[in-house]
Each structure stands twice: as C-alpha cells, then as structure tokens.
C-alpha cells in the first residue's frame, strides 16, 4: 500500500488518480498506523512553506514520518512536499523543515536577479531535466525529458543529494535523493507520460 500523507494541503485528485491509473493501491491518510505500515509514502504540498509545515506539525505526523523513513520506507516529496524534506526554508521568515536532506530553500527571484536573468517567477510550465546522478526514480525516463514546474522558491546547497536540475537561466534543483528519501520540485502527476513513468519507478522502489 502506498500512502499519500493527508495534512489538509493541496489538491490530491491528480496524484491519487495518476496512481490509480498506474494500478497502484493507494490510500490518502493521516493515520499514523497507515504511515508506519505503508510500503511507500508520498508527501504532497502546495502553497506557502510556513502554513503547510504548521499544518503538518499540527497533525502530529512528523515523528511518525521520521520513524517510517528510519525504518527504510521510501518517501517521495512533491513540490512543496520536496521543499519540506530540507533543513530550512526562508519563505516569509525562517522555518524548520524535516531535515531528511541537507540544504535549504530560498526564493528563486533573488538568485535570478543576482545572475542577471529577468525570468518570470514563479517558474511555471514545462522544462527539461538534466541528470546529475543516477537514481532509481529515473529508471524509465531519459535526460532531456520534460516535466511540469510551478514554484517561486528553490532548494540550494544540496549538491550531495542532487539527482536532477533544470535550466531556468541558472541550474535549479529539480530532484533530490538521500538514501530512501526522494524529492521532486516538479509535479510528476501533471507531467504527462514522463510523470507517470517517474511515479511508476517510485512505486517499484522497495524498502531500503
């Protein structure tokens, strides 16, 4: 059973229907028992980091997710869910993340400005992946495949866990992996065939 962590953030329709489309048995749940017994966990998320993290904290699930990860359960964070895997975020203040992946999250705009790119923020649309490291997440896709992004903040100082970037003037963190913890800044559930292949690959990763 794959469990999508339900903490009242975001629209889970596409994520659950894409998993259903792949034939994956899925449960949207906030029950600690479900999370501890899950074969795989997905942490979704949209909106602002502070709000989402406060909601996740309020569910009391943070220690439960940490325990599941310690037990080797594969975890995939998507979009804001990926950003929460890091140590910290500086989105409207300073917020503590889950700390599974080394690095922090900061605004994209100032880094684009600093490098002389007047690109739009949020980065919204389809952009291609450049692989930095091998990962079982990419089993069925190839470098240069397009995925769908919507984000205004990005993860930095995470070279150890970086598995893919996307070029938006500057190289932007697109996917990370640290042992059994995976993160995608883009939305695999909105990235057509390529996204389905990424979800399929995640659903084949076994407890490490």
């Amino acid at each position: 059973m794959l469990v999508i962590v339900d903490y009242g953030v975001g629209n889970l329709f596409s994520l659950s229907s894409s998993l259903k489309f792949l034939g994956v048995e899925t449960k949207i749940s906030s029950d600690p028992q479900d999370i501890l017994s899950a074969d795989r966990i997905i942490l979704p998320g949209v909106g602002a980091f502070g709000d989402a993290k406060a909601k996740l904290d309020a569910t009391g699930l943070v220690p439960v997710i940490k325990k599941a990860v310690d037990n080797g359960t594969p975890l995939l964070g998507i979009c804001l869910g990926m950003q929460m895997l890091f140590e910290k975020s500086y989105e409207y203040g300073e917020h503590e993340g889950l700390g599974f992946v080394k690095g922090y999250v900061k605004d994209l705009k100032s880094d684009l400005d600093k490098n002389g790119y007047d690109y739009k923020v949020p980065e919204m649309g389809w952009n291609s992946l450049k692989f930095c490291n091998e990962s079982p997440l990419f089993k069925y896709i190839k470098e240069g495949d397009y995925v769908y992004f919507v984000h205004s903040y990005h993860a930095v100082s995470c070279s150890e866990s970086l598995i893919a970037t996307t070029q938006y003037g500057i190289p932007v963190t697109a996917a990370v992996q640290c042992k059994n913890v995976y993160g995608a800044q883009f939305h695999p559930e909105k990235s057509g065939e390529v996204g389905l292949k990424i979800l399929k690959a995640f659903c084949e990763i076994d407890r490490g």
Partner: protein
Amino acid sequence: MITKRIIPCLDIRDGRVVKGKNFQGVQDVEDPVELATFYNAEGADELVFYDITASVEKRPLFTDVLERVASKIFIPLTVGGSINEVSDFERVLSSGADKVSVNSGALKNPKLIEESAKKYGNQCVVLSMDVKRVGGEYHVFSKGGRVDTERNALEWAKWGEDHGAGEIVLNSIDTDGVKNGFDLEMLRDLCNVVTIPVIASGGAGKIEDFSELFKIKGVDAGLAASIFHFKEVKIRDLKEYLDKKNIPVRL
C-alpha cells in the same frame, strides 16, 4: 529552458464540447474526453475547459466531464466559466482542475482574486480578461464580451497581479474569430505592465500566427479553440514548426 505552451480550449455545454460559428448557432463537435485524449497525444501542454452550461441544474454534467478527463490525462487542467465565489473553486478543484480562471466573477467581486489566492495559492488563480479597444483605450468586457465595464484593461491586469493572480489570459475581442493572428499590439502593451505568465487568446488562424506571437517577450502560451477542433492546425505540426524556428517547445 522553459518552453512556450500550446493550449487548446474546450467549451463545454451540457457535457459536450461545442464551438459556436460566427456567434450564431452552436455546433456539437466531440466528446470532451475523446478530444482531450487526442490533444494530449498530440502534445498539448495544458487544457482549458470553459463551462458554458446555462443552467445550474446541469452543472454536475460539467464536473463529471472534468473528473473523467482528469482521471485519464495528467497534464495541467484549467477551468473557467461560472466561477463567482470561492466555493466554485472548491467544486472544480475537487473534480480534478489544477487552475481556475476568473473573469466576470472577479469583475463583479474583485476580492475573489485575493480570497481564492490566499486559500489555494497564486498558482491556482488565472485572471482571464476579454478586452476591446474603445476610444483609444483598452476596456475590459464582462459577460462573455457583451458588456463594457469601462475598466482599463492594463490597470485591471496589474491590480489582479498585485492581488494574487498567478497567470493572465488575454482574449482580444478585436481579433477573436477573425483568424488573422493574435493581437500583438495589445499583448505587447500587457506584457509591459505585468510580470506573471501571459497566455494569448483570440485570433489564431494559422501556424505562423504562433511564431509571430512568441516573438513578443513576455508571452508564455498561446490558446486557441476552433483551429484545433476542426484540425485546421495540428498541435504536433505546430510544435515541430516552432521548434524549427528555434522557439522552445516540448516535443
């Protein structure tokens, strides 16, 4: 590099895709799920669904279409039409929409933009505007382009951006239906005042109209309906053409 997006738009009435011809009569075109599946296979980057169902009683037919499409097609889906309050966002988002476009509803109640952006995030709120030149100024029209609100379009766009809109769809009434190209002048003027993504609508008649469109810095996407529905332009051919012109597209 982020790509330019090609977006077919489907008008849905009573659960079917329709496209009016010359503003009179309505032609039944196709089953929405079949057409959406076709566009997805052709390489459409997103799909827009406008609910033009006239009666509230038949509204579930629309959400049913949405659910059926969203269970099969995993690209961004935007829904517009009949979005007047925050609860309308909930109704379509829970049926599989990713973004919601507001038009007349936001003109009537501008707070809708801010309230929905706060609740669902800016990325979810698309401000759609029907704009026409009136006495040398751009005016926003409401009720499907029928009523002149006398509101300045560029000011309205900027206001929308400042209050939480994450994207803007500019539909030029002046070029809509003429099939002689997008309203490049109006789009250029809009792109000078907003920094959020701009989707151009109204006027696409041939493949070259899109390469002209994407010469404008600040235009992120081109939206069209009839030329795609009637297969006058195939999305796959269009994207291959743009690629040859060195315009970044997802192939």
